[in-house]
């Protein structure tokens, strides 16, 4: 099913997203990948405030190319999500609701998505030049020393995504691959 969604989403809207749905997402999302995740988890462990409000938030696993003069952002596709598996359950517990990345997640993340009624959305890997066109605003908001890995607040319009793991525990990576195994 094709759906247009605008952030933030309430619990019912999250539950209405089904594995396999093709969605066009509009709203504010935050980039964070390996190094930013490490810092965010350390921040939580020290009981300090995260650089953005994580309740209901959407994190995009991405580290863009630098923007050319006059551009909003450089090439900005998703990075491999599995490297963030270690950090994800804690962030979901703190209220994270949507995650955008690419590739399968481990069982802990799959269970944490279900427990916390959150969804995992797959962007198309290796397509940073195209995804860049959906990004209308970009602002570096935390960890500038991490350079491309810093946290950026992005405003995206009609970002094309596929619901890969929904809040009910349906996992497209597991169900689809089987269909084509010979």
């Amino acid at each position, binding site marked *: 099913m094709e759906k247009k969604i605008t952030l933030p989403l309430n619990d019912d809207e999250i539950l209405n997203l089904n594995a*396999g749905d*093709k969605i066009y997402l509009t709203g504010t999302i935050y980039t964070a990948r390996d*190094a930013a995740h490490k810092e965010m988890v350390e921040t939580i462990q020290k009981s300090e405030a995260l650089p953005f409000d994580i309740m209901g938030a959407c994190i995009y696993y*991405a*580290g*863009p*190319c*630098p*923007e*050319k003069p006059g551009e909003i952002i*450089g*090439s*900005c*596709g998703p*990075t*491999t999500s*599995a490297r963030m598996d270690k950090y994800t359950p804690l962030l979901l517990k703190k209220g994270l609701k949507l995650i955008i990345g*690419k*590739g*399968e997640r481990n069982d802990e993340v799959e269970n944490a998505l279900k427990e916390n009624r959150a969804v995992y959305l*797959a962007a*198309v*890997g*290796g*397509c*940073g*030049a*195209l995804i*860049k*066109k959906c990004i209308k605003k970009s602002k570096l908001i935390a960890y500038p020393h*991490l*350079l*491309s890995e810093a946290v950026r607040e992005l405003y995206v319009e009609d970002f*094309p995504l*596929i619901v*890969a793991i929904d809040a009910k525990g349906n996992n*497209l*990576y597991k*169900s*689809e*691959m*089987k*269909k*084509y*195994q*010979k």
Partner: protein
Amino acid sequence: MREVDTNLVKKTVKELILKANVFLSPDIKNELIKKEKEEKSEIGKGLLNVINENIEVAASENCPICQDTGMCIVFLEVGQDVIFKGNYIYDEINEAIREAYDEGYFRKSVVGCPLRRENTKDNTPGIIYYNIVKGDKVSIKVMPKGFGSENCGATKMLKPADGYDGVIEFILDTVKNAGSKPCPPMIIGVGIGGTMEKSAIMAKEALLLDINHKNTDPYYAEMEKELYKKINNLGIGPGGLGGTTTALGVNILTYPTHIAGLPVSVNIGCHVSRHTQMEI
């Protein structure tokens, strides 16, 4: 003897990096267009359509195809009749990387220390391999390698008794474990024989070959064909979301080895496996 100024090497490497990160080689580009038509999964077909559109957009807007503009690998085949003059060649190549990543607005993805992980801010140093060959030419191959795919490679020291079937099993297991992570459809580079590191370098060099290349030894050409078929039957598909297109190409390189050993390495390239080359 032929004198080659290392500044010419620098200029060439820089030009090759700028090109590689924006324009995909025709063999991969054409195969992706073909696979979009053949893919059986509707989701997979849609993803291949997006992948093909991205390649067009990157080229027409002079934008990096992927934000992971990689760690820069440079292979130099130097004719033994060449004498280099000018600055130290290693410094010139790294200067080429520095300038290309700056001028191309490419992402700087290299950390200086693997554990303390501070970014070097200019994507240096590159990984540079020198090889002495016959003649008076310098052949330069450049590969900006993304790590989504690089992380999925593996090396195993098999036993001679593991034989042909053991090699096939190890390669298939490596691809299965990679699954959705390396941005499939992928390109598989395999190195069989030599020593531990020799097999790994051959696996990398295999990724530099045209994806339609066939091993000149019919035995290994057949093995490439078998692997291609078996990998595409794994069902991983574009983006790992299922489908009939998992590998775009399989290339094997081999080398003699020790009576006690059977080293095998697999290096995986993503669907935008970028590399360029030039001879000076």
